[in-house]
């Protein structure tokens, strides 16, 4: 039953991916000009001069003078064979560029997710169970602040304070000496020393919103007759709350896994840019700005794949946790 369901979902995702790839490619081509135009614009913005003949030759070499459908076909026909083409800007294969950055993106996203859950779950439960207590008000106030502050602004303020008052640099994920060093225990420790700042910055608003969701959901459940019944039968308060209402209230948490996957790449692009994190987000943003078609296209395709997989995983998990949900 479960197996068939997964198979059906996967089969459906193929036409979906295909449709998304066309839309993605069309969107990337939609702005006026092409990679060459934006290359020329970037250079002349810095007062540099480019050779017009060279530009025209580049445009021809990259096939940018071809009609849209020809370009798309060229890209997708190679992509299904696993060749995502060459990045115009870096003259490197797109797949190498993307994988280089993915490992750090995954690490950061997982760390943030764990941080968010570890904080949001207990706080959410506490503020629901101790509704309108002082602790609840404090948590709620902080939560609203966290929700209302954009991550990147928080990052900017933190960086400014760090530079101006402490003379420290909080950007990046590694100290200078480890930036391009091969992986070692020391580099891992160095990463651990730096990663908590972006994790806190990225985690605050997600934590705040999850606390609110958890609180609201749990409040709905706490007054249900089954809770009263269980309490009347003498179940300990801790076991009662954890076993029944929390299990139901946790539902939206699991749904967020579906969004968490694409967030590996697209999440917190601006924050990553501000903090100069070597993750995939800024590279994707650069590719889109520079109209580096194949690189940007591959990113968007990957995002789409991750969304589909994420949704699938969260659907399966939901069914496991909540016995009322059944596959059809």
């Amino acid at each position, binding site marked *: 039953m479960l197996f068939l369901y997964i198979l059906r979902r996967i089969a459906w995702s193929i036409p979906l991916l295909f449709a998304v790839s066309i839309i993605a490619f069309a969107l990337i081509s939609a*702005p*006026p*000009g092409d990679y060459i*135009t*934006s*290359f*020329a*614009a*970037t*250079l*002349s*913005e*810095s*007062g*540099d*001069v*480019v*050779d*017009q*003949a*060279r530009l*025209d*030759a580049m445009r021809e*070499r990259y096939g940018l003078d071809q009609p849209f459908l020809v370009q798309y076909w060229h890209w997708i026909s190679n992509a299904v064979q696993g060749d995502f*083409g*060459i*990045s115009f*800007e*870096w*003259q*490197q*294969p797109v797949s*190498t*560029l993307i994988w*280089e*950055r993915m490992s750090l993106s995954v690490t950061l996203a997982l760390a943030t997710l764990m941080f968010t859950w570890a904080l949001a779950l207990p706080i959410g439960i506490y503020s629901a169970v101790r509704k309108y207590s002082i602790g609840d008000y404090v948590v709620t106030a902080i939560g609203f602040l966290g929700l209302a502050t954009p991550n990147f602004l928080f990052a900017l303020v933190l*960086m*400014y304070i760090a*530079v*101006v008052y402490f*003379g420290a*640099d909080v*950007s*990046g994920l590694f100290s*200078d000496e480890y*930036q*391009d060093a091969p992986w070692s225990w020391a580099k891992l420790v160095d990463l651990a020393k730096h990663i908590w700042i972006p994790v806190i910055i990225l985690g605050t608003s997600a934590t705040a919103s999850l606390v609110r969701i958890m609180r609201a959901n749990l409040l709905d459940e706490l007054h249900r007759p089954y809770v009263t019944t269980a309490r009347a039968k003498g179940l300990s308060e801790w076991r009662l709350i954890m076993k029944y209402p929390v299990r139901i209230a946790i539902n939206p948490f699991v749904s967020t896994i579906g969004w968490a996957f694409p967030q590996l790449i697209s999440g917190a692009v601006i924050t990553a*840019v*501000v903090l*100069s994190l*070597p993750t995939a987000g*800024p*590279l994707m943003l*650069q590719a889109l*700005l*520079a*109209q580096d078609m194949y*690189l940007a296209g591959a990113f968007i395709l990957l995002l789409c794949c991750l969304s589909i997989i994420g949704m699938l995983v969260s659907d399966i998990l939901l069914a496991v946790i909540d016995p009322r949900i059944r596959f059809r």
Partner: protein
Amino acid sequence: MKRIIDRVRMRSGRVMAGLMFGVAITPLMALSDAGQGATGEAPALAEKVAAGELPPVSERVGSEPAVIQPLDSIGTYGGELRTGLRGSSDHNGILRVVGPQGLVRWDPQYTEVVPNVAESFEVDDEGKVFTFHLREGMKWSDGTPFTADDVMFNVTDLILNDEFAPIPARYTTGGEPLKAEKLDSYTVRFTFAQPYGDFLAELAAPLGQNPVLYSKHYCSRFMPKYNDNIEELIAAENAADWQNLFLQKCGDLEIPARWGNPERPTLDPWVIIEPYTGGATRVVMERNPYFWQIDTDGNQLPYIDKLVMPIGADTESLILAIIGGRIDFGLRHIDAPNNRPVLAENREPGGYQFFEAAPPGGSNMVINLNLTSKNSELKKVFNERDFRVALSIGMDRQAIIDTVMLGDGEPWQHGPFETHPYFDERTSTQFLEHDPERANALLDGLGLVERGANGMRLLPNGAPLKFRVDVIPTFDPTWVDALQLIEQQWAEIGVDMDINPMERTFFYQRTSESNEHDAAVWNGRQSWVSGQLPHQLVPVSHDSRYGIPWVNWYESGGERGEEPPVSVKKRLELYDKARGIADPAGRRATMLEIASIAADEFEVIGVSKALPTYGIIKNGLRNVPESMPSSWSYPTPSPTLLQTWYWAE
């Protein structure tokens, strides 16, 4: 050899010296005297020599190293120089620091072209034959010899190879490419069909490095001509074809991949250790043990061990790094007037000071009415000289300078400054006065008498006289502010102008590529000397937005675009002629003839003089001039010879 150098200096040097830049700063360049050997080297290299890992320094630099007189003092070895890069496509930020090591280079004052990779050069009297003497025993950064074969490889296999890329226009005269011959292992000769006086200046600019860019023994393996198994290599490196493979491995003048391969041998003072690639967060370069320049005491350059260039995502993070004291040299991207207060305020905590970067001439803001507009009614009006004059005197430049540019300016059209030998009074200073009455009279005289309900003038066909000025707000933040004042000032003479701010790629596509604009704003920071494109004077570049179809016509040799009017055609002919003239006085006379025709036509409208901007330099860094020219063809700051900069103890 000394004799030859002197003769060259006589011909293209001394006379140019007076002409090129006008103001001469203190002279600090002594030309190489063959025979001086290298004796000193960095401690780290000396250790390697002692361990037998490197040949001795005198062998590494060869028997004819270039001898450089440092600006103030002989330096000491060691330290890092940190400069910032901004995100993607900032490869020229590296180029400007490392410097284009071409056959020749500009001297630090931007007044004359001096030998660089070439030990000396000779030019025949006609300006057609250029002979370059290379340095005996000079080596690539991997220790292999640099000889005439490398130059021949670069010229015949790459510059003149259509399969690789079209032949760059700067290596052709009258449509015919140069001919290169190898006279002996250390002498090459380039011959042109027609006189080409500007050739040396072209070679000194960043785009003139082609003849000595690639090492034959390394880069030839990526060409089918030299490698029979090229297909395997292409497949192994995931490349699309040999051209792509070549660019991946050896780069090109102006693409990021130039700094992406640490294996590629170069002639640069520093070589890549951590490359500039898609995932990079910084670029690191280390001293080239085979660098071929020494100071006057025989110490091998560069003094500074390492260049470290963190890649910030945007200008703001670059500025944050500067005020945090994490950048030692900065000019590119940060020199906008609005950054000045925050940078000035943090001089002490950041431990840096300002230096001046002076544009060679011209204007920061020039309005180009599109004389080839697709809107026929507007085109007719724009092509009336009186209309353009009316707009110019309808502008209150002093008010704009006082409010928008914080007083940092002077009313100016465009063109070289008063102190420059190329200064042309009319081009720069005519129609600067604010005279709305006369402007109104001129417009009435053109028959634009009828007014609409809002008091604005109507075109002869009854439609409102209204046009849009395209502008990139992020390029120069003063432009949009200035345009807002101009909009009000022009409204007083009944001309309805709209500001049309847009994203830079869109701007480029709308103006330079498809000619859809009514008018556009750009700069014109030029002194018209060899190696610069005088794009506000003659339509020769995609930045000549008053006549893009004329540019296309000129660049395609009449095949595409639109045939320009007589006056423009005459100037294009004169411009080609000026580029050929070897005698500086003759070149100047021809350029001034062009300027005089341009002044008669009065095609473009300037606002204010391009006054010097500023960069930051860390305290304790020595041999850095307090003021340097700022230009792409110079290209700031590399001709000030960063290899002679050093850290005070």
